């Protein structure tokens, strides 16, 4: 056991603010690694100190293992917190930390490798007794036979992908060979790994995940979250606990997630994502996210825990401080992601300068943000501006508070998703709860209650998570790798 005294935060945006807050509370010094574009941002002003990691693009700054470890050494940090996205799940960073005698606040390199290779993760899930969708590795030559056994439509997935990237739905046998070849070429370029695999495509499923915490020996769960409100596999709204799940299903999923954690000797904070068909009472393993997630605050809201503090305690080698019996889930929490995107223009990104930032305040309202009036929203990073985390004694109270909270949320200078979220949380289907992963797309197609949202689809040919640049293996910095799973 070695107490952490100074932590290098290798991230930006709201998660940097989030980690700084907990470190401050724990009396841990913070050094924030900043690119030139972020040198004067709110997280830089809040951190005890900042260290520049260069002027360059993502590959040379937040995605550079060398730059981050050099910064940690130069700053005299005894630990690195990677946040989410960027290098959070990069085994090379975990190994570099080990070599440099720096604590990596996250799972072991072996677990990161197992989670990052989707076929390996799937094999571990099977070994741990978790249900998986019919599927397997696909070579262009024999993919047809496999797809025939699975039954169409099938989903072609990149082994090195994840977070909703590198996915391709094939509905007809005639399209399969081409789809596999293209997906393989793209996967090679984007993830440095040409392997692809097939899984049955589930068209109407929910996306539910279980939060895990482990110390390498013992693993507990911290309840579940529903992340079904997604657009193109990117989550917009998450809640805890997952509504209308049914106790049998809920308990089965929690047990399954813990079984996988125990099988992997999981150390740190992680999430097991599942596809769920509530009508059939069935669920399937989707992937393992070996990091703190964007939507962790809803779990904090219903458990009363500080997940960053638990991460740090595990990293210090203190072991689990909680037993499963100590973890209670009470009330309901909903998180809305406020993004700098224009829903009226196909969710076109809206970088710029924030001219005003007024957020709601009051009972049950938590706002995690890194923006204030004057903040730059640089085009090179993701579009997450703020997370409104609203909790109540039950879902109805949380929803009522959420409506008022969104109405009081006013961000000027850049386009945001606030008004779209305001309309969506009034939609009867969402209010009823338990929507599937296709819900938001259908709602937007209906015109979002006549608001003219998603007009003309993505006229400009926008492709979230496309592999055009493909520079970011395992990276998201807020949105991309945090996406949903394979369900449409």
């Amino acid at each position, binding site marked *: 056991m070695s107490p952490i005294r100074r932590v290098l935060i290798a991230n930006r945006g709201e998660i940097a603010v989030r980690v700084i*807050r907990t470190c*401050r509370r724990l009396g841990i010094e913070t050094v924030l690694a900043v690119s*030139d*574009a972020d*040198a004067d941002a*709110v997280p830089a*002003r*809040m*951190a005890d*100190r*900042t*260290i*520049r990691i*260069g*002027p*360059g*693009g993502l590959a040379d700054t937040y995605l550079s293992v060398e*730059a981050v470890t*050099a*910064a940690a050494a*130069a*700053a005299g940090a005894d630990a690195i917190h990677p946040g989410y996205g960027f290098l959070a799940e990069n085994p090379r960073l975990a190994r570099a930390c080990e070599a440099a005698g720096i604590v990596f606040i996250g799972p072991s390199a072996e677990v990161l490798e197992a989670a990052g290779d989707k076929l390996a993760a799937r094999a571990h899930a099977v070994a741990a007794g978790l249900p998986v969708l019919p599927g397997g590795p696909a070579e262009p030559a024999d993919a047809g036979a496999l797809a025939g056994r699975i039954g169409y439509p099938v989903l072609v997935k990149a082994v090195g992908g994840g977070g909703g990237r590198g996915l391709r739905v094939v509905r007809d046998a005639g399209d399969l060979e081409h789809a596999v070849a293209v997906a393989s070429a*793209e996967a090679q*370029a*984007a993830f440095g790994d040409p392997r692809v695999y097939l899984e049955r495509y589930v068209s109407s499923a929910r996306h539910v995940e279980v939060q895990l915490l482990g110390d390498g020996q013992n693993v507990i769960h911290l309840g579940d979250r529903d992340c079904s409100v997604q657009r193109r596999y990117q989550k917009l709204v998450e809640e805890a606990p997952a509504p209308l799940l049914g106790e049998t299903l809920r308990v089965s999923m929690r047990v399954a997630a813990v079984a996988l954690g125990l099988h992997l000797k999981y150390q740190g904070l992680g999430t097991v994502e599942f596809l769920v068909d509530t009508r059939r009472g069935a669920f399937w393993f989707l992937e393992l996210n070996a990091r703190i997630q964007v939507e962790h605050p809803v779990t904090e809201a219903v458990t009363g825990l500080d997940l960053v503090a638990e991460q740090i305690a595990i990293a210090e080698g203190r072991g689990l401080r909680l037993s499963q019996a100590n973890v209670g889930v009470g009330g309901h929490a909903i998180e809305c992601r406020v993004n*700098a995107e224009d829903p009226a223009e196909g969710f076109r*990104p809206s*970088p710029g*300068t924030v001219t005003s930032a*007024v*957020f*709601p*305040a*009051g*009972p049950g309202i938590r*706002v995690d943000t890194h923006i*204030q*009036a004057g903040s*730059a929203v*640089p*085009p*090179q*990073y*993701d*579009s997450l501006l703020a997370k409104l985390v609203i909790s109540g004694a039950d879902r109805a109270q949380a929803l009522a508070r959420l409506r*008022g*909270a969104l*109405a*009081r949320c006013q961000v000027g200078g850049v386009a945001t998703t606030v008004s779209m979220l305001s309309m969506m949380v009034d939609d009867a289907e969402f209010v009823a709860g338990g929507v599937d992963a296709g819900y938001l797309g259908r709602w937007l197609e209906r015109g979002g209650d006549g608001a003219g949202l998603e007009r003309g689809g993505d006229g*400009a*040919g926008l*492709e*979230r*998570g496309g*592999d*055009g*640049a*493909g520079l970011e293996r395992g990276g*998201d910095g807020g949105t*991309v790798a945090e996406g949903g799973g394979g369900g449409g």
Partner: protein
Amino acid sequence: MDLTNEDVTDILALLDSLPYDELDLQTPRFRLTLRRTPDGWTQSTDTRGAPTVVDVVPATGPGAAAAVAGASTAAAVAGAAAPAAAAAPAATPSTDPMFHRVGDNRSDVPSGRLGSGTGGSGRTGGVGGSTEVSSEATGPGADGQDAGHGATEVDASLMAVRAPLPGTFYRAPRPGAAPFVEVGSRVGADTVVGIVETMKLFNSVAAGAAGTVAEICLDNAEFTDRGATLLRIRTD
């Protein structure tokens, strides 16, 4: 000074019982403003302290490179801050290091045309679509009319393909792949000629008209402002 959500909630609990509608709390490093509205309370914060920079020169950060990129970052922020003036950098190539090469490389068009031609079209550029003709033919009230008439014939067939958003310009669909187009490539209106990545959205840019690629104005992975010229097409 920096208050948590719990702190704010505690303050609000106190305020709720008092006849005040606003609390403005200021320290040299922090400001919190709470306002009572008909729907409930709002908060806005201002974290003011200047960052404390660790006095270490990172191994990978030579000063010269930092200065250059600092300039482009400043340009990016300035461009993004004033969308209405998004075309300004393109119209004033001599003051923006990012766009020097555009002018320097233009051997086919008299230099006098560059500023006025792109400036004229820039007024309408970058809003509705990603491509636009930079010539008197379509530039409403183009200043270019004052420029040498001898160039008109050449310019009328040259069309600027502009960045629809600020971001990173990619010439190829993925790292290591062949570029979408090279100078001399034949294109149709729908031919994808590049990608601009903005906030992780990959926005493919179409040629916008049939013709031949006459010039590629930015290197791969270079930053572009909204409305800046990415390449030029000699239209049929």
